[in-house]
């Protein structure tokens, strides 16, 4: 049982090393005593016996060392000894240690937070069964407009989905879902609220492999128009129903209609979004007619792959079906192709690019931090040159010396890393909360993998920061230090060259970061100041939707809207009120395909004219400040039967009525009305979203009864001052007309625009923060290097001054010395940026990647900061007292 004895020895050596050491001492002294006793017995005097015994014994210290060399865990013991020694050294120079630790903590903290988010959003598997086998299937139109971001994956129409499911066999199953919204009203006078909901086919949850926490999912028989069952998500279950399991089986009121709760979804299910509070069957919100439409797109389709059938094979089957549909309905917007996308890409599409950009920025910052610490370590190494030289001369191996120096950088990085991880805990929570666009389908948490990543980062940083200084400070040139006398003026030129190189690289990377930040900031400012096309100052917006149950006739809807408008216009502090379906800069809203009666018919297969559809009350355009270019606005007479009028935007006029007067012509929107709509006016363009080009828009009169499936309205109230202060009076007026009606998205126009460019704002802010930090680090590094240089050259400068050099000349000399690496670094950084900015081109809005203003500004800023950092040491050098300098060692 040799292994057992060996194991026992190893454990003993690990835990009772001190006892073993004492044992060794006792053993050796026992031997010595026996030898002395033998010598005494042989007839020597006590002193002679002792000396003779010691002579044969040899060097006890060496003997002890040799015996101990055979013990196990020797490596660990020497490592711990190095660590203790390093800790003592670091404690003795607190400024250096604290600065280095702080730098590393910031860099590793930032990197860890970002990695946590990247992991949850991009890398972690979704909480479904076999998520690798799930794929989203979208439609794809052929046409140039369909190849840009946002349009290349087109949502699916219900009829297409049903045809795909029935006619293809490539996928195991396909399910569909679409966004919806309900007014959730209380049973016992609780406040009504608007809940974001989703409608999914009966096989949606089984396909994903999601088991309900309570109750059950939908059955096939419940997936029909008019169905009244609902499933709640865990968040609304806890929040509104106090986690009471008895809600399952009871009824809640959605849009005034009683619906039975059949199940509660598990806590960690947050697909597609954490805002979804309720799920209803897919067909329950549709009419039998709308399910047969091939041209009303709004659904997302998820398909599960069969392991034996490849994705291409399955998709080609679907494509064949889709193309057949397209050929069958050539005059309707039916897509030709099908585009699949992995479900994880689907969830992360909005934040993937910004996240990758931020990871690169953090990597740059980490590099700069490590270079800074390396610079500091090189400076320390210079101070210890003689010590290292003596140890080398006495026989220390180079690897031992390098290892000891690496221990120092390892300790700094370890402590910095621990502090950084603590920092990142708060930073991650703040980031996840503040960045609204992040898909939080799994919850963003710091767990084992993230800690492992932080450890790996610590090692990488320690190596990066420590290896170069360690190797350079233990080379052959070090022995020259032993011969260096105090009178030499050369100093150690190789060390200064190394420090200057490190600084140049540091400044170069900083310049890249600064330029990226500058470009992003400019793009963001451009976004923020884009002219939306209407007044956005002091405008309060909110939305509400009138439930079909209570407002079943268009007259009721018109009556509500009319009285609301009258009441609101009478409120003090209200300058104007606009009521419509979707306001400018709010979102896509909806679009319709149309034809122009007076124009020749579109040949089958050609691209169909398409425009956004909007409702507008007669005073809409004046209230929002949208100019009238031709014709007239709507009047109160344009309603009901006389409501077959339309106002078009300038873009529509330019695109589809080139060179002719559109007034008096007729548009045929088959989605709305079979009869033609007369064009009565042309108004100015508005943006449907900041950052996207304007799109042709057509406005229908609010009171024409021309509604779609949902009766959702948006209100814009232009106030005299303080739009948010008006929110309560406005809501009171709405409640006065219908106390059961909840209102959602109460925001000022500025807040709406700010929310829609959240991604850009975030990226720009964070990269700017990283760049500013890097600039600070680089300037501190520059200051340190120049001080060091000046100290090295102190005797030389003293001699120069003594020989008659003027202060200004010395100042110039010092500044030139310090600015040279800065300028080199700037040049290198500009060159690197020229390559790097092309990568962020897709994230810039109305900003050229090679913007000369940004490049020039960054160069000027860097030179200014560098000059400021060099000034103090240069000034000190010029004020040097030559006698002092020459006397100093």
């Amino acid at each position, binding site marked *: 049982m040799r292994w057992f004895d060996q194991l026992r*020895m190893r454990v003993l050596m690990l835990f009772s090393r001190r006892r073993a050491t004492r044992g060794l001492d006792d053993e050796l002294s*026992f031997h010595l005593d026996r030898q002395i006793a033998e010598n005494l017995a042989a007839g020597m005097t006590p002193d002679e016996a002792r000396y003779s015994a010691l002579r*044969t014994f040899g060097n006890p210290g060496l003997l002890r060392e040799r015996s101990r060399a*055979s013990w196990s865990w020797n490596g660990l013991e020497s490592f711990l000894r190095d660590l203790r020694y390093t800790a003592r050294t670091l404690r003795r120079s607190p400024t250096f240690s604290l600065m280095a630790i702080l730098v590393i903590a910031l860099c590793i903290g930032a990197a860890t937070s970002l990695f946590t988010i990247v992991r949850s959003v991009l890398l972690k598997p979704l909480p479904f069964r076999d998520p690798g086998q799930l794929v989203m299937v979208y439609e794809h139109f052929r046409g140039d407009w369909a190849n840009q971001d946002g349009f290349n994956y087109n949502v699916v129409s219900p009829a297409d989905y049903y045809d795909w499911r029935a006619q293809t066999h490539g996928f195991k199953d396909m399910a569909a879902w679409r966004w919806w919204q309900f007014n959730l009203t209380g049973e016992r006078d609780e406040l009504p609220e608007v809940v974001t909901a989703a409608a999914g086919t009966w096989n949606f949850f089984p396909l994903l492999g999601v088991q309900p926490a309570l109750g059950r999912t939908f059955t096939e028989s419940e997936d029909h128009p008019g169905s009244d069952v609902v499933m709640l998500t865990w968040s609304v279950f806890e929040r509104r129903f106090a986690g009471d399991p008895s809600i399952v089986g009871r009824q809640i009121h959605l849009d005034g209609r009683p619906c039975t709760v059949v199940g509660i979804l598990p806590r960690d299910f947050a697909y597609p979004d954490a805002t979804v509070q309720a799920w209803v069957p897919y067909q329950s919100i549709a009419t039998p007619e709308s399910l047969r439409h091939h041209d009303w797109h709004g659904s997302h389709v998820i398909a599960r792959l069969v392991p034996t059938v490849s994705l291409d094979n399955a998709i080609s089957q679907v494509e064949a079906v889709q193309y057949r549909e397209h050929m069958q309905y050539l005059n309707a917007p039916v897509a030709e192709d099908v585009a699949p996308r992995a479900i994880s890409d689907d969830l992360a599409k909005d934040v993937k690019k910004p996240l990758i950009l931020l990871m690169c920025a953090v990597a740059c910052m980490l590099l700069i931090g490590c270079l800074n610490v390396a610079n500091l370590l090189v400076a320390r190494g210079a101070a210890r040159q003689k010590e290292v030289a003596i140890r080398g001369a006495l026989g220390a191996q180079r690897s031992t010396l390098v290892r000891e120096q690496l221990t120092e950088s390892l300790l700094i990085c370890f402590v910095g890393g621990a502090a950084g991880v603590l920092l990142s805990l708060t930073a991650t929570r703040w980031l996840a909360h503040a960045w609204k666009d992040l898909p939080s389908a799994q919850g963003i948490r710091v767990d084992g993998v993230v800690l492992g990543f932080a450890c790996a980062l610590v090692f990488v940083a320690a190596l990066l920061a420590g290896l170069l200084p360690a190797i350079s400070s233990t080379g052959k040139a070090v022995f020259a230090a032993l011969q260096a006398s105090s009178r030499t003026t050369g100093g150690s030129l190789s060390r200064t060259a190394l420090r200057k190189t490190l600084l140049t690289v540091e400044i170069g990377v900083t310049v890249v970061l600064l330029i990226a930040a500058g470009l992003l900031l400019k793009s963001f400012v451009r976004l923020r100041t884009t002219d939306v096309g209407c007044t956005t100052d002091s405008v309060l917006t909110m939305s509400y939707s009138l439930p079909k149950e209570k407002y079943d006739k268009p007259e009721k809807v018109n009556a509500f809207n009319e009285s609301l408008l009258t009441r609101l216009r009478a409120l003090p502090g209200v300058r104007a009120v606009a009521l419509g379906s979707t306001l400018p800069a709010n979102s896509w809203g909806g679009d319709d395909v149309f034809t122009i009666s007076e124009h020749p018919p579109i040949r089958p297969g050609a691209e169909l004219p398409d425009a956004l559809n909007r409702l507008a009350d007669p005073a809409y355009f004046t209230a929002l400040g949208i100019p009238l270019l031709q014709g007239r606005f709507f009047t109160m007479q344009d309603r009901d039967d006389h409501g077959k009028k339309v106002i078009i935007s300038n873009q529509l006029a330019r695109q589809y009525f080139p060179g002719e007067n559109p007034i008096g012509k007729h548009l045929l929107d088959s989605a709305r009305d079979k009869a033609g709509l007369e064009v009565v006016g042309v108004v100015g363009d508005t943006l449907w979203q900041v950052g996207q080009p304007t799109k042709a828009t057509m406005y229908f009169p609010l009171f024409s009864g021309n509604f779609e499936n949902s009766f959702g309205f948006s209100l814009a109230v232009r106030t005299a001052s303080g739009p948010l202060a008006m929110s309560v009076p406005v809501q009171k007026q709405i409640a006065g007309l219908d106390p059961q009606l909840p209102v959602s998205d109460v925001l000022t126009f500025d807040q709406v625009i700010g929310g829609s460019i959240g991604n850009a704002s975030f990226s720009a802010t964070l990269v700017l923060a990283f760049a500013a930090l890097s600039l600070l680090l680089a300037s501190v590094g520059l200051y340190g290097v120049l001080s060091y240089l000046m100290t090295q050259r102190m005797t030389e400068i003293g001699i120069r001054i003594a020989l008659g050099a003027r202060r200004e000349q010395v100042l110039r000399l010092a500044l030139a010395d310090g600015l040279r690496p800065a300028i080199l670094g700037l040049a290198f950084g500009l060159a690197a940026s020229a390559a790097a900015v092309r990568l962020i081109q897709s994230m810039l809005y109305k900003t050229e990647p090679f913007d000369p203003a940004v490049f020039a500004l960054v160069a000027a800023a860097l030179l200014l900061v560098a000059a400021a950092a060099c000034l103090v040491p240069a000034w000190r050098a010029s004020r040097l007292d030559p006698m002092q300098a020459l006397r100093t060692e």
Partner: protein
Amino acid sequence: MGKPSDLVQGTLDLLILKTLLPDAMHGWAIAKRIQQLSGEVLQVQQGSLYPALHRLEQQGWIKAKWAESETGRQAKFYSLTLAGRTQLEKETANWNRLSAAINLVVSEA
């Protein structure tokens, strides 16, 4: 054989293992016994004895125990383990083979 460096490391191990075969002894006794058994030819120096003893202990061929010695003082007694016995046989066979081969070469005319 006065200089300990002449002894190949493995040979010292073999001697120690053989000496410990009958019963447990402390370091001093092992040195004395080897000296005695070899007819005063082999004098093991402390400089090589104790490192060898500690190495053998770490490798599990011998195990140690503190006990009272013949003089009344506490001493560290080493004894052979089972694995040690096997190792001793192996090393003895090795040594025999090696020495026979050397003898063959040296006694060649």
